[in-house]
């Protein structure tokens, strides 16, 4: 890479820990790797002989496949471990699981886990690089970075843009990483949704809370609805998907107040007809599939950088 920036992170646990130059460096690196995926022979030897283990304690299609493809395009060997439940109910502690994997000398462990802070826990206990692929309701850094990359690609910049994130902010690690990432990069982040889904003091992360979605979406450059769940752990959050769609769903009508060229993004999987109208999801404004494409490039960049690439 041409950049002079020294990337000194062994682990990627969240956007909270990354500086603006770090983020820029990741985005530039990812941009340069994107071309590899368009080649007829989609493979470069940069991580040849390296071992990447994906350790997923929660179901995932997109993120897991994305990391797997990214690693293989860099010629790393990849191995997957799934656990349908948390480590404690399985009987083996997370620390033991991780130490056993580490004893087999992998270079990177990519982990998704239902507990917030699980990646921090792992990084404090093993020497292998840890990449957080989503921990509880804490962070999902690779998703945050691919969102930044997608916006930068389409808008040419991030600074000064208005980004509206709508829906379940409380339980979304994507929202969390996006709020931190977009704010750090100089965008103005607005969130809205039913008050049951807006966490306490979220504004101190650098976002504005809007009581109506019109206020959030008004003049927005980016509109990102989040996947909605009716209740979590017997906590009633919304009465019905029907009512949610009527008041908080993103549709053509509400988009009239956004900028005409506003980007529609979604971290997936989409509840079509609930938080996002199918019509809008498939419109020319939608960059949802670009996000997925960029995800591979971002994950290539992260694995390359944590192993000392420059």
């Amino acid at each position: 890479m041409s950049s002079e920036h020294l990337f000194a992170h062994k682990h990627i646990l969240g956007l909270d820990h990354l500086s603006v130059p770090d983020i820029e460096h990741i985005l530039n690196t990812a941009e340069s790797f994107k071309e590899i995926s368009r080649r007829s022979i989609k493979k470069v030897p940069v991580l040849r002989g390296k071992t990447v283990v994906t350790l997923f304690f929660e179901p995932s299609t997109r993120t897991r496949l994305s990391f797997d493809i990214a690693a293989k395009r860099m010629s790393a060997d990849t191995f997957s471990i799934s656990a349908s439940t948390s480590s404690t109910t399985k009987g083996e502690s997370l620390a033991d699981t991780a130490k056993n994997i580490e004893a087999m000398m992998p270079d990177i462990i990519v982990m998704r886990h239902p507990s917030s802070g699980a990646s921090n826990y792992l990084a404090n206990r093993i020497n292998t690089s840890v990449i957080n692929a989503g921990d509880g309701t804490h962070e999902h850094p690779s998703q945050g970075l691919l969102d930044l990359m997608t916006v930068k690609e389409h808008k040419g910049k991030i600074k000064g843009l208005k980004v509206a994130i709508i829906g379940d902010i409380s339980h979304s690690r994507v929202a969390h990483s996006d709020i931190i990432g977009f704010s750090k990069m100089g965008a103005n982040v607005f969130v809205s949704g039913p008050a049951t889904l807006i966490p306490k003091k979220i504004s101190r992360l650098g976002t504005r809370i809007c009581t109506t979605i019109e206020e959030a979406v008004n003049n927005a450059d980016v509109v990102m609805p989040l996947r909605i769940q009716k209740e979590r752990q017997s906590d009633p959050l919304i009465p019905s998907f029907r009512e949610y769609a009527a008041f908080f769903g993103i549709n053509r009508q509400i988009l009239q107040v956004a900028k005409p060229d506003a980007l529609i993004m979604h971290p997936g999987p989409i509840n079509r007809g609930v938080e996002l109208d199918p019509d809008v999801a498939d419109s020319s404004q939608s960059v949802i599939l670009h996000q997925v494409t960029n995800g591979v490039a971002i994950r290539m960049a992260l694995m390359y950088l944590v192993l000392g690439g420059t």
Partner: protein
Amino acid sequence: MIRTQAILLKNGRIIDPANRVDKKASLLVEKGKIKAIFTPRQKTPPLPKKLQSIDLQGKWIVPGLIDMHVHLREPGEEYKETIETGTRAAAAGGFTAVACMPNTTPVNDCQSVTRLILEKAENAYARVYPVGAISKGLQGESLAEFGEMKQAGAVAVTDDGKPVTDSQLMRRALEYASSHNVMVISHSEDYSLSRNGAINEGFVSTSMGLKGIPHIAEEIMVYRDLALAEYTGCPLHLAHISTQESINLIRLAKQKGSPVTAETGPHYFSLTEKAVKDYNTNAKMNPPLRTQKDLEAVIEAISDGTIDVIATDHAPHSILEKDLEFDQAANGIIGLETAVPLALALFRKGYINAARLVELLSTNPAKILGVKGGSLEIGSDADIAVIDPEHSFVLHERDIVSKSKNSPFIGVKLQGKALLTICGGRITHNAISD
């Protein structure tokens, strides 16, 4: 029989608020009792021939400390703590008595369990006062047998660890307990608001992605139990108070003359929610660490008398419960060995004087539980703590006496230490040669 010897504690600062004493003097222990207290100007009483004499220039001689809120884990979870190890930790912290919570396995909800605990405690390093359950099996459904437990030696009842969710059951508990002269201790928590929560709800919980426990979960229940105490006229003690608004409610209830008392833990005036940084499970407890504003309100309540007692809520857990993902880890920290230095910090900063410190850690818990101790009355059992208020040290895990090491103060520099603990005339802890 425990062998006791005559001990002369020479030239210390004797602080005994129950007798309005704060003076430089010597104290003679003989045959397990406090035999005499005399100043340098007074005539020395006749001293026995075989006498251990200890010079305590600059040290405090206070009534043995009483921790009215500990979890000794026996019976049932002896791998975390036993009555023996827990009372050794108590002695090491200057405590001569502890009241142990009923959430053991089996639950202390009947006289046979109360008796078992007291049998096990016969040779312990501190007096052990069992606290029985309010409800059978801590299930929150029907009253446990307060009368029989009291007869067997229980000093109070509580469902600590859990709230009594049913208001009618709590009302009946207060009424029925008053007939047996048993104190009811409230673990104030609206469980429907706190369920699955890991830390205080606020910016820290939001930024760490952890489910929050709002301060109102405590306050709503504090209010309910204060209302029940006022309505029934029955005495109530509130455990581990952690929030500003709880304190406002208690202050108001006391102004109205309600028969209520309250305790807080040293962690609530020493740490805030920020201590959970980097998902430190040794800073996870229930109620959770709160904000700076709450911490300041707790300190104010300690100085103005709204809070009556400092109790540690000593809650030992092994690494099996603590070396885990944060939301999976158990609530609770150990506290017996750090209470003295943490309380002394309040003294050094000028929030309380020495007499008030002794009231909070000894005189008041004795009064509230109706147990002996809490004073240095001539002729009473020699339950005494000697404290060096100056001694500075860094807390190391290897120095912790408790079987469990779950303390957020490991690695922290503390000032103040129990040098010598005497329980019933027997030396249960001696760090003077250190």
